[in-house]
């Protein structure tokens, strides 16, 4: 039974497995890396090779931050959705800032390079003084040029640098460090916002994966439940041993004891013990070799023979080569019981109960028959027993039990036919022939 192979906790709480978390985060950041690189080429940024290395560093850092956040999100697994969404919205904010800061640090020196390069292109010389102020030498410009200069930074954000006093022709423009710091923060915030949405996208993906996982877990649980229910059903069907059999048997046993037939009493006690031990032992849903099943029915008939010493005769026709064929345990019990109840008990004359097996086109055919009154007794069909008790353990119930068990075990592969044979009653079971140990 594959119930045992599934760890119970795995079925209980659905967790997105670590592997999937890593893969999803890696895929997201790889996408980011590819897209920004492609954009770099399209836009025509300078220093592509140097930028690519740094971008990789930033991407890996982003990936690491994402993974670091994962345990926080995992804490809220199984909580309400709005709580988890809120948590993601809150937690991702500092994370995005962290990534943006890392971004700024990694690209800090590149920025200067790029800016001066752009400056050259525009005919502007850009340098830095000791205090950190940026000094831009602006040449005389024709007309109302220049407009605001758009600078694309290596990390992909655009900064509009509008030369102060653009209309002033020529001269030196000084951008002091406080303005620079402010610009830097704006830049980090801009980048952070971009990363924030990226991280939120991952959080959404993570939540979705989590829900998919819990849906799968629910499915698994339902499957396990169905299997358990089926096992329980088979078990209960199998244990429908007639309680009247038990009391009648105890009555016979008591008679043997009271009449001092100790040897017979002892033999009967042993037979009953073996019968009950075998019928109750083991996995109730498991199959048993036909030999074993026949042994059990022999025991049962031996016990009943003590009650009906003159009236119950038995016959067995089991080919030895079918001894290892697999049958559901106790499958013949209700049929043999019915023969005793509806053929032996109601007749004063001796009745023979026959159990036979044969192979037929690769299928196992089992027959339980008797030379009793046949269909004559309606009780067989209606399930009302001989003394008017209602459907306690009647023929109908017994036969239904066999049908249900075979259906549960083999589906349409097995069939049960029963009816009057002219000189008695017979039930024929056909089921797939499976040998023990294949």
């Amino acid at each position, binding site marked *: 039974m594959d119930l045992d192979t599934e760890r119970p906790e795995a079925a209980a709480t659905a967790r997105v497995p670590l592997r999937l978390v890593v893969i999803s985060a890696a895929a997201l950041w790889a996408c980011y890396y590819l897209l920004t690189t492609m954009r770099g080429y399209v836009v025509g940024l300078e220093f592509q090779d140097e930028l690519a290395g740094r971008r990789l560093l930033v991407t890996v850092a982003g990936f690491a931050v994402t993974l670091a956040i994962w345990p926080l999100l995992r804490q809220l697994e199984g909580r309400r959705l709005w709580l988890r969404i809120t948590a993601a919205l809150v937690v991702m904010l500092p994370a995005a800032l962290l990534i943006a800061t890392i971004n700024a640090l990694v690209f800090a020196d590149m920025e200067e390079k790029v800016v001066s390069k752009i400056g050259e292109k525009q005919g502007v010389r850009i340098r830095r003084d000791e205090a950190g102020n940026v000094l831009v030498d602006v040449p005389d410009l024709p007309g109302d040029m220049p407009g605001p200069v758009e600078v694309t930074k290596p990390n992909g954000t655009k900064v509009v640098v509008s030369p102060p006093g653009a209309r002033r022709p020529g001269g030196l423009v000084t951008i002091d460090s406080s303005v620079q710091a402010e610009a830097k923060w704006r830049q980090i915030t801009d980048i952070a916002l971009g990363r924030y949405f990226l991280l939120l996208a991952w959080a959404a993906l993570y939540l979705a994966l989590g829900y998919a996982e819990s849906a799968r877990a629910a499915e698994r649980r339902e499957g396990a439940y169905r299997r358990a229910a089926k096992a329980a059903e088979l078990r209960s069907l199998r244990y429908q041993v007639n309680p009247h059999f038990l009391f009648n048997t*105890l009555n*016979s046993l008591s*008679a043997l004891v009271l*009449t001092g037939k100790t040897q017979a009493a002892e033999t009967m006690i042993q037979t009953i013990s073996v019968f009950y031990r075998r019928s109750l032992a083991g996995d109730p849903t498991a199959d048993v070799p036909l030999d074993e099943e026949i042994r059990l029915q022999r025991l049962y008939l031996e016990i009943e023979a003590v009650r009906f010493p003159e009236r119950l005769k038995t016959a067995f026709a089991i080919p030895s080569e079918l001894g290892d064929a697999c049958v559901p345990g106790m499958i013949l019990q209700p049929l043999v019981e019915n023969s005793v109840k509806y053929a032996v*008990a*109601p007749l*004063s004359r001796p009745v023979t109960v026959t159990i036979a097996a044969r192979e037929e086109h690769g299928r196992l055919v089992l027959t339980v028959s008797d030379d009793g009154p046949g269909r004559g007794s309606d009780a067989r069909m209606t399930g009302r027993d001989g*003394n008017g008790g209602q459907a306690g353990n009647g023929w109908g119930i017994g036969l239904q039990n066999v049908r249900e068990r075979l259906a549960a075990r083999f589906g349409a592969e097995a069939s049960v036919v029963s009816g009057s044979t002219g000189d008695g009653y017979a039930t024929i079971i056909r089921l797939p022939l499976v040998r023990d140990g294949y």
Partner: protein
Amino acid sequence: MATDPEALVLRTLIVDDEPLAVERMQIICAGLPSLSVVGTANDGAAALRLVEALAPDLVLLDMTMPELDGLGVARRLANVANPPAIVFVTAHDSFAVEAFDLDAVDYVLKPVTPDRLDRAIQRASARRGQAKPGGEGGESSRWIAEFWVPHRSELLRIAVDDVTRIDAERDYVRLHVENRSGGGRSYLLLQTIAGLEARLDPARFIRVHRSVILRRDRITGLRHDGLGVWSVELVGEEAGAGAEPVRIGRTYLAKVKAMAGR
């Protein structure tokens, strides 16, 4: 125990199709001074013949037998003049409704203990001292006078008069019984409520719902709840004894109203 021990020894016939069961009963009976076994039979037909030939006071009757079973024998014996007392001996603890109106003295379960059998015999003795409740010769009432319900490891006799209410519960019915001291109990019985209704005296019991039969004297009034829904009010309702009003089923409404003369 008695002034005239001779008169109290019941002449007894044992009937069972299983030889060992007969043997066992013989041994147990041998230990009881209150009866003497006059014969044994292995099937219903033999039992009837022996009753005619031996005129026993008591028959210990197995229920499950070939051809003519215990119930069949009892039914025939009910039509005999001066019939013997019947004690059913069975491994079953549930019967068809028909088993209740056979006027058996007792039902004992296999394997019966000597003590339990002795009690059954005492009841039979006591019964013989009285006039037959059902009247002489075959004119036995159509209605059940008592139930035999499984209780612990025994069958318990419940007089129909003590039953106040019967509820259907799946394959079972629950008999609500009020004993003389006013206390209540209930017992489950493997019966259908319809089968039971047919054997209950309609002058004493009335079905008010698909799953409820009430003893008429428990009903104190009818109540209209509106929209054609009616309920019966029960004894003990005011006293707060937990007797909730019972809704009347549509199909039973006319009959219940007729009871109130409407």
